[in-house]
Every structure is written in structure tokens, then in C-alpha cells.
């Protein structure tokens, strides 16, 4: 359904943005989103070894049909300013762009237009060293939290890469982590970590003390299957990309599940439509398909972001090369039931 009305909230599908593309208008296995302002965002494409479409795209996403690529950088390669396995992206208060690379074990820094500034990071398992840097998030003091995934911990750095602190160890205990992925810091300083292999999300305070957790491994309605990303909205509702279950889970601040979204892209994105218009046989075959419903759905949704300026939930739909956007509608008038 396009509109979900539940528990005093309304989630209304807006539109999708993107298509599978190794360059230009689209994404190649989008895996992370960082929001700037006024509709500008940065999207990480993981890419593949067939066409090496990994990159960072600066893109404007406005109303349906208004999307526009503004810049592309962090192309495939191991030279400064390039990357092999880009994983995540975050912006500091100056709008500089930080990209983690979970093969090169480094963080690359760019200005807002994609001009390379510096890179830092040392491979290893000691304090301040990295093995598989994944999710990134800045706190209110502009300290960068880095999910150090294969060291099963979170480390905190200054923006120029000086080690500050860290927490987490490998395991499935209440305060342990197993190959974590995404991270989010809410406006109160709460730190949410997608504890990927443990099938849960941990909420910790800024010192790393566990405050609560969401989910357990599995595919049931209250389970999580390898969650990858977390976002929190202005009401402190929590959004979790339940990657392996192909769902976006939405929780109340106390961790109670509100609902799950499964993807609703019932019409093509602007760039998707352009692909079809340019390939008449594709259009003909689409008319012969019994149901296009599989195309609407998330397929390994890997990242979620909440645009508080517009009350927009933005989901990176990894296998489909697109973003799906939902409006958290605060002005929805519910029609009478008996229509």
C-alpha cells in the first residue's frame, strides 16, 4: 500500500530516485546516504567488478522528477581520492564529506564539491587502527564515530583522524558487537549501532554504555536479519534497514515496533523511465509481465536517512540501484472508513 496509517503516524510513499547505472544518472549498489540541506545529499555506490561503478554521487533530490546529479567523485582506484570498497559517508559541520573504505581501511575527506582534501587511517587492531571501517556519524561536537567492523567496535576520532576513544568487543553478549555496520547519533547524543551479525540494533550513550536494544535475529515481525543502518526522526522514532528481511522497520523511541515498510515504488523513477523510453523492447516486455509488484519492493535495503527539513524517509534500495522516499505526513486527514 502506498499510504500506511498506524499508531498516529502516516507514512506516504512519495517517489523513487535512480536506476542501475555505472555512471551519471543513477547508482550502482547504493549503500549509504548522507544528507546536506535543501534536498542535497551524498550517495555511496558500492559498484561491482563488471563495470567498476563505485563512486560518491552528490545529488539534488527535490519533488518527483526534480532530481539532478551535481557531482561524482571517489571513483574506483587506490590512489588518494579514489576508493575500492566505499562503505559509508558522513558530513561534518563545515559540510566536508567523509567516506569510509572497508578494504583500504581509510577515511577520505573531500570538500562539499568533491575536491579531495586528505585521507587518514591505519590498518590494524590497535587503538585508532582500522579493520573494515563501515558506518560513519558525527556527534554534536564534530567528533567522527567510525564503525570498525572487523574489529567489532566503534572508534571515535577527531575530524583529522586523531584517535579519541573506542568501545565494543567481539561477541553476542549484551555489550558486544559482531561485524557491525551502520551507525547513527540522535539529537540527544544517543548512539545507535546496527549490530549486523547479531541481528539487533544497540542504543548506547556517548561513552558506549548500552541503553537498550531493538530486535533479535530472525525473519519474524519483531526480528532483524542482518540490520545495516539506523536513522532517528524529530519525534525520536527509530528507522532500521532490515537488510536481510527486505524491510524498513519503524520503532517507537522505547523500542516498540510501529510498522514495517516493504517498498512501494509503483511507478518508475524519472531516470528509470528514461531508460525504458530509450529501449522500446524493454517497454514492450514490461507490458507482458503478469505483475510488476516485485519491482515495487525493497531488495536488500541497506541504508536509511531521515530528512528532518522535509519529513522524508529515504531508503537506499541496494539491489535496485535507487532510493525510495516516503513522507512522514503530519497533516494527513484520515478519510472515513466506510467509503
Amino acid at each position: 500500500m502506498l499510504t500506511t496509517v498506524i499508531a498516529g503516524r502516516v507514512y506516504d510513499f512519495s517517489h523513487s530516485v535512480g536506476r542501475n547505472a555505472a555512471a551519471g544518472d543513477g547508482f550502482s549498489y547504493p549503500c549509504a546516504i548522507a544528507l546536506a540541506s535543501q534536498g542535497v545529499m551524498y550517495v555511496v555506490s558500492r559498484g561491482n567488478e563488471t563495470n567498476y561503478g563505485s563512486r560518491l554521487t552528490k545529488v539534488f533530490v527535490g519533488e518527483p522528477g526534480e532530481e539532478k546529479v551535481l557531482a561524482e567523485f571517489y571513483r574506483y582506484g587506490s590512489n588518494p581520492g579514489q576508493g575500492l570498497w566505499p562503505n559509508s559517508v558522513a558530513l561534518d559541520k563545515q559540510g566536508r564529506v567523509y567516506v569510509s573504505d572497508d578494504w583500504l581501511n581509510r577515511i577520505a575527506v573531500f570538500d562539499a564539491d568533491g575536491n579531495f582534501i586528505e585521507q587518514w587511517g591505519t590498518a590494524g587492531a590497535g587503538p585508532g587502527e582500522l579493520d573494515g571501517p563501515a558506518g560513519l556519524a558525527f556527534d554534536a561536537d564534530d567528533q567522527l564515530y567510525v564503525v570498525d567492523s572487523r574489529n567489532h567496535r566503534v572508534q571515535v576520532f577527531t575530524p583529522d583522524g586523531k584517535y579519541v576513544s573506542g568501545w565494543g568487543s567481539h561477541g553476542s553478549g549484551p555489550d558486544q558487537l559482531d561485524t557491525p555496520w551502520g551507525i547513527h547519533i540522535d539529537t540527544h547524543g544517543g548512539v545507535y549501532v546496527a549490530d549486523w551479525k547479531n541481528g539487533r540494533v544497540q542504543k548506547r550513550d556517548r561513552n558506549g554504555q548500552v541503553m537498550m536494544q531493538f530486535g533479535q535475529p530472525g525473519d519474524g515481525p519483531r526480528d532483524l536479519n542482518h540490520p545495516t543502518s539506523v536513522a532517528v526522526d524529530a519525534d525520536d522514532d527509530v528507522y532500521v534497514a532490515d537488510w536481510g528481511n527486505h524491510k524498513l522497520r519503524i520503532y517507537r523511541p522505547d523500542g516498540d515496533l510501529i510498522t514495517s515498510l516493504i517498498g512501494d515504488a509503483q511507478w518508475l523513477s524519472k531516470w528509470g523511465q528514461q531508460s525504458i523510453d530509450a529501449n522500446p523492447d524493454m517497454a514492450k516486455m514490461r507490458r507482458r509481465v503478469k505483475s510488476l509488484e516485485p519491482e515495487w519492493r525493497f531488495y536488500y535495503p541497506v541504508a536509511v536517512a531521515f530528512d528532518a527539513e522535509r519529513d522524508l524517509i529515504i531508503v537506499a534500495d541496494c539491489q535496485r540501484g535507487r532510493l525510495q522516499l516516503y513522507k512522514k505526513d503530519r497533516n494527513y486527514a484520515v478519510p472515513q472508513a466506510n467509503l
Partner: protein
Amino acid sequence: MVDNHDIGLMAHLMRRAGFGAPREELERRAAKGYEATVEELIHPKTTEPADEYTLLRYQPAALLPGGMPPMGNVNWMFHMVNTQRPLEEKMALFWHHVFATGNSKVDNYDQLLAQIAMFRQRGMGNYRDLLVALAKDPAMLYWLDNNENHKDAVNENWGRELLELFSMGQGNYTEKDVRQASRAFTGWTFSVKIPRLPYGRFPWEFEYVAEDHDDGEKEFLGHTGNFNGEDIIDIVVQQPACGHFIARHLYNFFVADEPQVPSWKINLPRDEAAVAALADTFHESGYDIAAMLTTLFTSDFFKEAYFTKVKSPAELVVGTLRLVGGAELPRPDYGRDVALQPTYMGQDLLNPPSVEGWHTGKEWINSGSLMSRINFVAEMVGSTDLPGVQDMIGRLRAKGPLDPDAFVDSCLDLMGPLQVGTDTRQELLEQAREGGSLAWDTADEVEASVVRVGEMLQLIVAMREYQFN
């Protein structure tokens, strides 16, 4: 108490029923016992398949690779290197040899991987059910044109190969049987899939179109009726030729190299009694592949068949990677550097040269492929920082000083145990003697010994004997 014979036999079993195993695993399995290991391999309920989530975290494109290499190869190689169910994976490879389906036409690694997953799931189950699943497999339907097999325009491609290459072999049916079987499979097709633009691949699904099925009477292998596809398969599996054909395939894959399949009509099996025993099991068990594998792996003809097969490129590459370790996680360029290695050696997985599959045995070897094989394996075993090589070095070091004879024999033992001819051993010994005894007392000696071990392992894998399984 595990002795060298137990280790040797277990190594033989794991080379054939899997992709080899490091020494620690051989010791553990040998202590558990041969029959118990066979049982665990055939019914792998307590061991884990490869973790596909890990693959997709690092290489998301391996899920829906499309029509271009190498991401499809990445997917399968990851499974073969990481699975703890080696026979399950080996059977997927076996059926890929028999039911050879290729990307050259299918242009869709997604569907080929789905077929391999089906082999993983059903490869040790009931053969009749496997054939039905194969007949409904979209990659196969497209590969052999059954989507073009219509009630009023019969296409015989699938019907013919079902009898010739997938169940009985030439000489056991007539052209009329081919026609009748093909008529029975009219209407077996796949539904139109959502096209690949703009959001990537979507799967084909099997579809039975009753209106396009020839529901008339058919005469097939002496039976008469309004047969549908499953009826044809039911009749096929009852034929003595079917049991014999599958038995010979299993013998060829797991025991000893047979001539190429097209010549089976004129070349008798090298061990007719063994093939007959397997065929008997096929029929007595109601076409149960697991029962055939139990018969095979517990037979004397298997246990005595050390090093009688030329390693396929997949066996060589995967066996080496599992031995030396370090390739469990994907890495950048895993496709070209690792997953396509069998392709460079003449076995382009998921893309066999034709429906007949690969010519195997000594035909794997030519001057080009031999160089590729040796170069790859030598580079791997010469990388003394890899965990599996480190383990071998540690085991050698634990023996203390080793004179050249003991050095050579220990290395051959850890690499198999391998059996080599007198001339080969002499060559290895001459190399070992140049450096004298292996010593480990000082840092310099350790450093020098590590280098010498790496060189010795490289020399061993360059020998003729290492090409055999």
C-alpha cells in the same frame, strides 16, 4: 588411534567428496571415522553452508550478476571455498558437468546460479525429482529451447538431450521416442520476467501453459498414454539404461576417469562391476542419489582409486585455496584474480562449451592450461604468509631439524599425503640436498627454512603427480 593409512584414506575421500582438506581437518575426521565422515558428508545437517550474507555485504553484485562475468563466478567460488558441506557443493559441480547449462546462450548468471542452488538443494536427493526440477528450471528451459516447444510446433532440443545426455545415453531410445518425449513437454515454459532495465534482473519463473500442451496419446519406450512431462521422466528413470548412465557418470566424476560421454556407446566402462553395483543401488533405492554415494564411497573400488583422476580446474583451484587459506572473504578483484582462475585453465564455470559439458580427464591438460595450473598453485603455496602454508610450516618446525629425506617426505605428507614416483622424489631430494638439513634454532635459520619450505611446496605442485586427484 589415527595412523597414516587413515589420514591417507581420509585425504582421498575429501579430495573426491569435497575439495580436499587441511591436515587439522583430516586428523579430526579420521579420528571420527571413515563411515561416520561419509555419513556426515552425505547428510550435512549439522554443518554450515557458505554464509551468503557475508558475500553480499562485501560484493552485493554477486546476487544478481547479469550476463557479464565475473560476479557470477565470484558467487560460486565463494560458496566452494567457504562451505562446510563440501559434498553438497561437489554434487552441485557434478550436476553442472552432467546438466551443462551455459551463459554463452542464457546470458543470465542469476538464473544459472539459481540452477546451481537447486543442485545444492536436490543434488543428493531423488534423481526423479531432480529431473523434474531440472525440466522446470528456467535456465535449462531457455538453454534447450523448451520455451519454444509448442503444441503445434514441437521443438525437440530438450526432449532429445533429456534422453541422450541427461538420463540414458545414445542407443537406448529411438527418434520416435525423442519426438514423443518432446510432445509431452510442450507447454513447459517460463513466465515473462520484468526486464533488466532500469532496476536490474528479476527472475524467470516456471510456467505450465495447459493450452499449449499436446494432450494427445503418445507412445514412449513401449508405454502408451496421454503423457505429460513428469510421466516421461517416470518412465525414463525405470529404464536399466538410466541407472547405468548415472552410475557411470558418478564413477567418472568420483572414482576414475572414463572416456568422454559421447563415446560411451562404444567404449565399455573400465570397471563394469563397479558401475553395475551403483546402478543396482539406483534402482533398488528408488533413484536415491545419496544411496548411490554411500555405495560408492564405502566400496573397495573407490578406496583403492588414489590419484586416478586428473583434477578439474575447479578442483585444482578450490582445493588449493582451501588448503592455503586466506580466500574466505571476497576482496577487490576477487573475480579476475580468484574466481576466474578455473576459466584461465579451461573450465569456465557457469559457461560450459556446450550441452555436452567439458571433456574431462587428460583433456584438461594442454601446454597452456598446464602452465596456468602450475603458476596459480605455485604462487599460492609459495605465499608463506598464508594461514594454511603457515600451518604446514609450523608442523614441519615441530618435527625439529629435518634432513633432506625427511624434509621431502614431510612436505609430500602435508600436501596430501601425496604419492610420487621414484624419479619425482629424486628430483625433490636433489633440491632439498642443495640446502642441507632444515634447521629452526635461530631467527636466520627459521627465515631460511621458511623460504626453503615455500620453494619445496612450489616444486611439488609443479610435478606431474600434483595434477591428479
